[in-house]
């Protein structure tokens, strides 16, 4: 009974996941909604605007540096919480 229940829920999860994958846009399709002016601006202008050859570095530490600062803050808060817990006793 328990195994049947597990199999049933696994099948439900599989249906949801397969449906999601089927709905996903094809990789590299020029008609994708993500293929708008934002990545075009990054590819064409990032060298001139940031001077970095690595476009990804120019995105994560210049265009979206605030996001990366939040990411680093998450890391910092996590280690601070772990340290205060481990050193408490």
């Amino acid at each position, binding site marked *: 009974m328990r195994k049947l229940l597990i199999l049933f829920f696994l099948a439900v999860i599989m249906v949801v996941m397969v449906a999601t994958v089927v709905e996903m846009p094809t990789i590299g399709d020029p008609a994708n909604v993500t293929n708008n002016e934002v990545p075009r601006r990054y590819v064409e202008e990032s060298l001139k605007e940031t*001077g970095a050859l690595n476009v990804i570095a120019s995105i994560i530490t210049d265009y979206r540096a605030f996001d*990366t600062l939040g990411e680093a803050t998450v890391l910092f808060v996590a280690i601070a919480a772990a340290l205060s817990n481990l050193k408490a006793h």
Partner: protein
Amino acid sequence: MEDVIVRYVSRFILPFVQLYGLYVVLHGHLSPGGGFSGGAVIGASMILYALSFNLAAGSKKLSHDVSSILESSGALIFAGMGLISILLGANFLANRAAGFPLGTPGNLFSSGSIAIITFGVGIKVASTMITLFYSLIEEEDHSHDHH
């Protein structure tokens, strides 16, 4: 852990691992990689050192207090670059708009604040791994003392 093979091999490969990690961090704006991946390589090399020798030897190279200070200073470098941008009269974390020299693309010293922020993130990620590793290991040592 007293394993002569692990000790010998890790002593041999550690300089290469650390040099590669430093390269990935310092060339974050030129080649694939960046602060997060390069910092992870450097932190893993220190963990390998402390695992293959022992914790006392690892603490002698980079003590717990020093790695805690390095971690905070990495975060401060990142946030400080943003505040410098404000002081120079632009938005928080602005690069070209704040007037940082962009240099020639492809040079090591180019792209203004990106290189400095990548360096700060690299320090931070490396010391985070080391600090977490030390505190977990030291916790184990203390519990042995109490029992």
